[in-house]
């Protein structure tokens, strides 16, 4: 056993991973996926090399963020959880009173030259807070703890929903729910919550904005309005479907190249990918995501502290939920909510957030080893 480890660690690349406190498997998967993403982006942007370079730069920044996060011991992070959570709530509140508008929603805060989207960092800070809270409780948690946990979760979620930004609100909420779930919330409580959720669906329906309702209706029957609301979904499905088993080939997707796919570099980039690489490509991509999720869960399971376990697990499942919501959205399973495809969609903010989250996983991974020894 020890011999095996030595022979493995003797390789120079593994030494580098060890030096930077990285999990080799996870890191390699992330790098490969990101590079593949650049390739897809090149096609989706219609061969816009400048755009690909910009994205590569953001990737580099993101990976630096990952490396930095990996160096921070997980216990230090744990200590910051409450502060960051409170700061986050304040920022979310500021967004509502003094934020910049874009496309009918207030999501941005400006600090001089830096524009900043507080809801984005809450994707990390909320699960950190939740993990912190439940790591201080008994596992499995008592009902009272769960109620407090829900309040901690609902406060930022409602603030984000007010912007309005349904997509991020859902992702933030789900990241918190993952913590509660992993903390061992009793099955019957989960069942009752689901029942309450179904019962509350009509109320939520009336609380939704018109455009959000339209999206859901459109999802149910896109052909009812093929030129307006349904257009995105129809064109996306045509792109995916016409890819067939083997795809049309890289740079050969007619739906993407000829502008039929909307937002093809960002939210709908999966349609571009599947049109060009077919069902086989989609299977490979989903397996790659699955691998990353599994590796993340393994790292979480091997963590020493409950905080690390809960946060690591929530990060892994959140990552998966992004994938699921995005692919579900472009294949017509879920309403269009504006969630990018992790590591592939064009865009800096979500990329940096994601890689930061993986930096936390790396930290959980490496600092467990130290503790273990």
């Amino acid at each position: 056993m020890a011999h095996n480890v030595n022979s493995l660690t003797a390789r120079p690349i593994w030494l580098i991973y060890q030096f930077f406190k990285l999990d080799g498997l996870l890191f390699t998967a992330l790098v490969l996926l990101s590079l593949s993403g650049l390739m897809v982006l090149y096609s989706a942007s219609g061969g816009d090399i400048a755009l690909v370079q910009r994205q590569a730069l953001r990737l580099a920044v993101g990976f630096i963020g990952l490396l930095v996060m990996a160096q921070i011991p997980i216990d230090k992070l744990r200590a910051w959880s409450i502060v960051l959570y409170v700061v986050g709530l304040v920022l979310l509140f500021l967004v509502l009173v003094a934020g910049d508008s874009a496309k009918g929603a207030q999501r941005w805060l400006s600090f001089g030259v830096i524009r900043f989207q507080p809801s984005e960092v809450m994707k990390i800070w909320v699960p950190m807070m939740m993990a912190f809270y439940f790591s201080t409780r008994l596992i499995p948690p008592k009902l009272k703890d769960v109620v407090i946990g829900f309040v901690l979760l609902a406060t930022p979620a409602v603030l984000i929903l007010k912007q309005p930004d349904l997509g991020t609100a859902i992702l933030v909420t789900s990241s918190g729910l993952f913590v509660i779930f992993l903390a061992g919330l009793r099955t019957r409580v989960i069942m009752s919550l689901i029942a309450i959720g179904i019962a509350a669906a009509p109320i939520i329906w009336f609380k939704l904005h018109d455009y959000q309702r339209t999206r859901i209706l459109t999802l149910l029957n896109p052909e009812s309005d093929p030129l307006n609301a349904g257009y995105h979904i129809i064109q996306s499905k045509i792109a995916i479907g016409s890819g067939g088993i083997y795809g049309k080939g890289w740079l050969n997707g007619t739906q993407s190249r000829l502008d039929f796919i909307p937002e093809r570099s960002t939210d709908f980039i999966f349609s571009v990918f599947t049109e060009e690489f077919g069902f086989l490509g989609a299977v490979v991509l989903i397996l790659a995501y699955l691998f990353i999720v599994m590796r993340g869960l393994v790292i979480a399971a091997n963590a020493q502290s409950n905080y690390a376990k809960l946060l690591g697990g929530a990060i892994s499942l959140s990552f998966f939920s992004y994938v699921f919501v995005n692919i579900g959205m472009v294949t017509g399973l879920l309403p269009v909510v504006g969630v990018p495809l992790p590591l592939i969609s064009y865009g800096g903010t979500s990329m940096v957030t994601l890689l930061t989250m993986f930096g936390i996983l790396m930290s959980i991974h490496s600092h467990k080893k130290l503790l273990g020894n």
Partner: protein
Amino acid sequence: MARRIAIGDQRLESEVFNRRAVAAVILVFIACSILLFQLYGLQVTQYAHYQTRSDDNHMQLQSVAPMRGLILDRDGVLLADNQPSYRLVVTPSRAGNIDALLGRLSEFIEFDDRELRRFNRVILGRQSFQQTPLKFNLSNQELALFAVKQHQFPGVEVLATSTRYYPQHEYFTHTLGYVGRMNRADQQRMDAKNYRATTHIGKLGLEKYYEDILHGEVGYQHDEINAQGRRQRVLRTEQAKSGVDLKLSLVTEVQKVATNALGSRRGAIVAIDPNNGDVLAFVSMPSFDPNLFVNGISQKAYSELRLNSDQPLFNRALIGQYPPGSTVKPVIALAALESNQINAENTIFAGPYFQIPKQSRRYRDWKKGGHGRVDLKLALAQSCDVYFYKLGFAMGIKPMHDMLTRFNLGDKLGLDTMGEARGLVPSAAWKKRIHDEAWYPGESVITSIGQGYLLATPLQLAQMTARLAMNGLGYKPRFVIAQRKTKEDGFVPLEPTVLPSIDLKQQEHWQQVLSGMRAVVNGRTGTARNISRGARYDIAGKSGTAQVIGIAQNAEYEEADIAQHLRDHALFIAYAPVDQPKIAVAVIVENGGSGSRVAAPIARKVMDAYLLKGMTDGP
């Protein structure tokens, strides 16, 4: 707080987390399965459906009109050409509101009402994804302006095509006819598939007669279009097959000389090569420029043509039916010779007029004093009417009818064009059938000098002349002498069609009649001796002066007293060289007066143009 953690059972807590993690993994797998199931449904199960929709999205099939076959003269001079032109086409399904579109386009492109009406009519009958021409022949300025503003007009494009052009303008109109825009009747009549991209069709003349081979076969272009409906590139092309090029028997130089010889007079000239039936010149005057009709003639211009009293639209050479007058005398003479009514050497006394025994009516000779004693040769040379009155009276209508018919008068010749007229060779049976009356001997008398019911087209007279020249051999007259499928193939000549020859009982009758025709030009007293002057070849001919109105019995025909349109038609037929005929000509000048004075010199010019063609020194 830290104490609470310490209290917690590490092992139990770890177990709870692991159980939940496993549950999460299961949920993740289920979620992945849902995604893959959905993808499988889209990409495998419904692949064909989405593939079709993707193709429909980005591919557009356009029919491409074939290049129309060219028409050339015998020497390769272009008579009907295709010139590059640009037209504005609209794909209605991509163009949005058509009325608004037209409003914006008309800010810099001029449309006339007829074009707009036509466009609105056409788009109703077509599928909305098909390109429909909105305006033909864009000017350079319109092209430039549209190029700048094109992005504002999705679904509107400039299409490079070709337009029929007749470089010889009015010279060949009555042979070529013209193409015009297809109307609804044309669209219903023609093969919808092959004519899908075709906008013009032969309306008249050779353009119509040879429409099926001139048109060619439609091609297809698979265009790639983007979401905005703009063409990105051509994916695949199935080349259209160009129409067949036609080489005509006509000779442009001769045609022009003939046309100019008629000048501003109304009339027709047809020249035929007696050796094969090739039509060498085919003139009907006045004429008009066929290019006017190609892209729609204006109402005003059309009215002017239609209401013009000289009738430029009327194809005199093909459809004009005239009393042939004395030009048929050689054939009447053959009929008389063959029916043993006369002997060529015998002389007959020809006074100033002829009377049927016991009838008072006088059939006058054109020459007031009469000709005295004449034999056949002299009778032909001087065009002695009384000589022929006597023959006609003696033999009756039957032999004349039969011989005229053998010379292809009274029926269509089968020239390869549209709408040939039959002419008329009367017979007793015909008169009974049409007029329900008996045939009168007096009618035979006037038929002998080409008057009465007898009618012939200039084309028929030329054919008659050609057969006289060839001692009865005959060919079907024709315009097209060769066809070319592709430039590489070159022209493939067509064989002339031989007609049943006219076999006489006695071969020397040909010589007897033809020497009379030669004497018309070369005889000391020949009516057309004026045209022999300076001729470098031997000409045989026959003049004719056809009455348009009947002259009262005791009145004299005085040209000056008679309204122009009631004056006699001047006719002349001729062939040359006499010993080896190469050209036979028929000339008619409407209300021209004397055939020998007016028509004969025109025939001479035509023969000169053909026979002396390419010779450096003029006569």
